[in-house]
């Protein structure tokens, strides 16, 4: 167990394979800590892009993949500590100035397959579920599971349910779902065990022959905007036209 210089909070740095190291911060979902992890990741990957070839950030952790032939593990450990230290100093100066991304969501029962069941299990009305889900601003904590899928947190305590006991074989593209303290949008049709409470008509990623650009990036603020059926249909049509171009 190693310690960050300023905060004195325990940060664990541990090898997870021949060529990767997992850095873990205290076990909590916290925007300030998450921002520190993102800053640390940006610092170390930009300063050591000759030896680090991939990095993934999650809620309270970061994995770095490195060329072990070119840098020893103890050396890398020193670089990580220095980056955490620098990120902590920078955090005191920086002010996050990110604009909020709005995601339009249609909460109608023909697309919100589990909305009634969620309301029943949470012992609140359907309207309250929609209200509790859409009034919060969420943070993008991790990208993963499937390309373009982004874990958003944190959900109102009243909406926290464990995953469905049997996952669905196919969750539709654009499904807005909840599980535990998280909410997310399925960017494409895929299997999934989360509770579906709505549908967004917008694309969650842009792609072409050489690149892949997710709609949401780590650390971003996200808000769900309830829309009515008419708007949902119009946006879906506009989106389909956009895709055909």
């Amino acid at each position, binding site marked *: 167990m190693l310690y960050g210089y300023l905060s004195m909070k325990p940060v664990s740095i541990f090898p*997870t394979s021949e060529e990767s190291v997992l850095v873990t911060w205290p076990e909590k979902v916290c925007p300030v800590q998450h921002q520190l992890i993102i800053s640390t990741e940006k610092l170390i990957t930009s300063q050591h892009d000759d030896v680090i070839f991939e990095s993934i950030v*999650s809620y309270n952790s970061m994995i770095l993949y490195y060329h072990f032939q070119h840098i020893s*593990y103890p050396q890398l450990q020193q670089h990580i500590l220095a980056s955490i230290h620098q990120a902590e100093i920078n955090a005191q100066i920086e002010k996050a100035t990110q604009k909020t991304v709005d995601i339009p969501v249609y909460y109608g029962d023909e697309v919100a397959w589990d909305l009634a069941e969620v309301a029943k299990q949470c012992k609140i009305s359907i309207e309250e579920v929609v209200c509790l889900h859409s009034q919060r601003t969420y943070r993008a904590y991790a990208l993963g599971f499937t*390309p373009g899928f982004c874990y958003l947190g944190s959900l109102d305590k009243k909406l926290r349910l464990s995953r469905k006991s049997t996952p669905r074989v196919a969750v539709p593209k654009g499904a807005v779902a909840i599980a535990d303290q998280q909410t997310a949008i399925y960017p*494409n049709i895929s299997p999934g065990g989360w509770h579906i409470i709505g549908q967004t008509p917008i694309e969650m990623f842009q792609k072409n022959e050489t690149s892949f650009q997710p709609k949401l990036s780590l650390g971003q603020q996200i808000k769900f905007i309830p829309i009515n059926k008419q708007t949902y249909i119009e946006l879906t049509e506009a989106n389909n036209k956009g895709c055909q171009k």
Partner: protein
Amino acid sequence: MSYLTITKLNGHASIQDLGRKSAQHLGFSASGAADEYSYLLANQLLNNDPSAPALEVTLGQFSLTATDTCHMVITGADCQAFIVSEKKTPLNVPNNQVFTLTKGHELHLLMPKKQLHSYIAIAGGFLTKRWLNSASQTTTELPLGFGEKKLAIGQQLCFSTVEQSSAFQSKNQPPHYFHQDEQLALRFLPSAFWQKYTLEKQQQLLTQKYQITPKSNRMGYRLSGKSLHFHDKYSLLSKPVNYGAIQLPDDGQIIILMKERQTIGGYPVLGTVIQTDLYRLSQKRPGEYVNFVAVTLEQAQAQLLAFKTKFAS
């Protein structure tokens, strides 16, 4: 353009290279050849670039024909391959030896008696679509429509005619005994979580053997054995996961993450199997047994370095 046409496909086949390692932060599986040893050997025998795309065929039962004469090699699981031409008797094609497939002749792979994956490589590599710096196909990502489409009968796989010079100098070597028939000892790097437990508790993993279950594939290997219970009250949030991570779900039965793993996972991780043993594991079939042996980071890195040195071009 010269190409091969798939004429038979009964099992699973895909295009693979060394994988998409630097797109995991976007949620893409790293993917790549399941048995990196046999894949790299195939390219080395053909003097190819180490990351030239090859075909990974699982459990054989695969055939193809060529529009132009080309040099190829088959490595990995031995499918008793042979070439059929109109007039002559079938010609046997031994594994790990470069051969020439003449225009119009058909190459057949039977079901292998041992192991799972065979690699069919061609001089110069297949000229397939690449996506985020790799030609590797991932089953769960095929519906997204990136890169080459799912392989099927009738599909054409392009290759460079220029690479098929008649004066091809093969680097045929005596076979190496990388894969062994007996029970595989999986060397692993213990996790921080594992090290919180007493030696007595750790012995539960180290002293028993595990059977590979039929629910094993390119994504993960599920093992069956006496249930292990390492309760993790320290780590509840999903974290990035590695190739070879030894996951322990609530049912106490181990899952080892393989090439087509997801990028983030929530199960407790006991450690990570070293890469060279994962290539060996990828060729093991359901029903076969494995056991675990802890190693240090230095030992793990030394093994991988030796492996990489063998295949450095």
